[in-house]
């Protein structure tokens, strides 16, 4: 979230309009986490339910398989762990070390 030099009011688009598409990716919210998701590849059935429900699009999927968490944007809400099917529970939420 910190930047080298913050722009002055004359450098900004008026009305707070955002002129780039999809640039919310540049805003890293990973630092907000207090819990981090941990994945167990042995248990995962790649149902991709976690990917469907993640509010931040922080589940990385490739070729129809879970491949990782985007820890720069994961806010640690734990919805993925909650929604992982009861008989699978491949994701656990682990407290972030300071």
């Amino acid at each position, binding site marked *: 979230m910190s930047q080298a030099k913050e722009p002055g*009011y004359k450098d900004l688009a*008026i*009305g*707070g*309009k955002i002129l780039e598409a999809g640039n919310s990716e540049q805003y890293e919210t990973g630092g907000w986490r207090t819990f981090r998701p941990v994945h167990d590849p042995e248990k995962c059935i790649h149902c991709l339910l976690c990917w469907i429900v993640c509010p931040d699009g922080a589940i990385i999927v490739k070729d129809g398989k879970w491949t990782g968490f985007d820890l720069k944007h994961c806010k640690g809400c734990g919805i993925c762990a909650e929604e992982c099917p009861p008989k699978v529970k491949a994701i656990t939420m682990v407290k972030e070390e300071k």
Partner: protein
Amino acid sequence: MAKTLALTGNEAAAYAMMQINPDVVAAYPITPQTALMQKFADFVSDGDVDTELILVESEHSAMSATLGASAGGARAMTATAANGLALMWEIVYIAASNRLPIVMPVVNRALSAPINILCDHSDTMGARDSSWIQIYSENAQEAYHNTIQAIRIAEHPDVLLPVMVTLDGFIISHGMEDVVILEKPEVQKFVGEYSPHYPLLDADKPVSYGPIDFHDYYFEHKKPQVDAMETAVGVIQQIGQEFSSLCGREYGLFETYRMDDAEMAVVVLGSTAGTARYVVDSLRQQGVRAGLLKLRVFRPFPAAEIAEAFGQVKALAVLDRAISFGAHGGPLFMEICSALYNAHLHIPVLNFIYGLGGRAAEIENIEEVFTRLQKAVQTGKVDQAINYLNLRE
């Protein structure tokens, strides 16, 4: 050829809207604005405009839909009054902060409670901090002219702020006058094509409106609105000059009447200026050096220009058709005092709150104001700053 029609203020404003031919109008009825939108709705159903008219369920929705249309890239307008303006309050601020050039006639009516449908300025005065430009009309002709000019003012690339054009409820809105209506092609040429600033409906340049803004950026998004208001002072005058070649009269920040050698003057907004002018004339016949300043542009408040206009006046009376409860004087009084103080002009200023809830401003009321002014000129002092005209104690 321009033609003269007998029109009410509401009809005149509706004619202006028809000739502007906005892309979208979203509106909800409220007395005394209802007839304005009814007239415009007639133009829509008669096919005189291409406007998409959206009849929404409340004024909050009216401004929301108008804002959405404007952000999408449409030239969008609406109209309201009193509690209707109050109901759309949050969106009014949002429209201005999103820098959308919406033009909205507001038919001045008292805010409830108790319910009063008649004229006073409490509604638009309540919105004076919203970052909307506010232009006050004295009569139906001005309501027509101001609405047309407002489009160019709002859409000016160095302004990009929405504009409220006021007309006094019932007095102007329902009073019939001779109104000179321009030819539609002239108005179309004057307002020109709308060139939206980063419209949402541009798939090649995707943009987002109204994001979250934390403590580290919000302030930097507000300052440009201040700058735009300052720029608007010059733009309003420039548009007024350009429009004068169409309509044959001058439009500026305010109008002075017999001010050149005036010893005392009254400052007023709206239709009461007509009555005040009559009183000035009758006093002048008695040798009293009376003058009048009719303010047209309340926001941005032209402080420097106003202070200059009062150079040699010895006492001023400011008429406020609204109260700011708990404040030291009415809204216009406070602005005038601030302007004078900052220009180091120590003129005695009297405030008269008048006409609330449609109480008529009679000739004898204005005469009473000038009698008090004459006393202030003689003594060089203010006996009582805040006064209430024609109030039963």
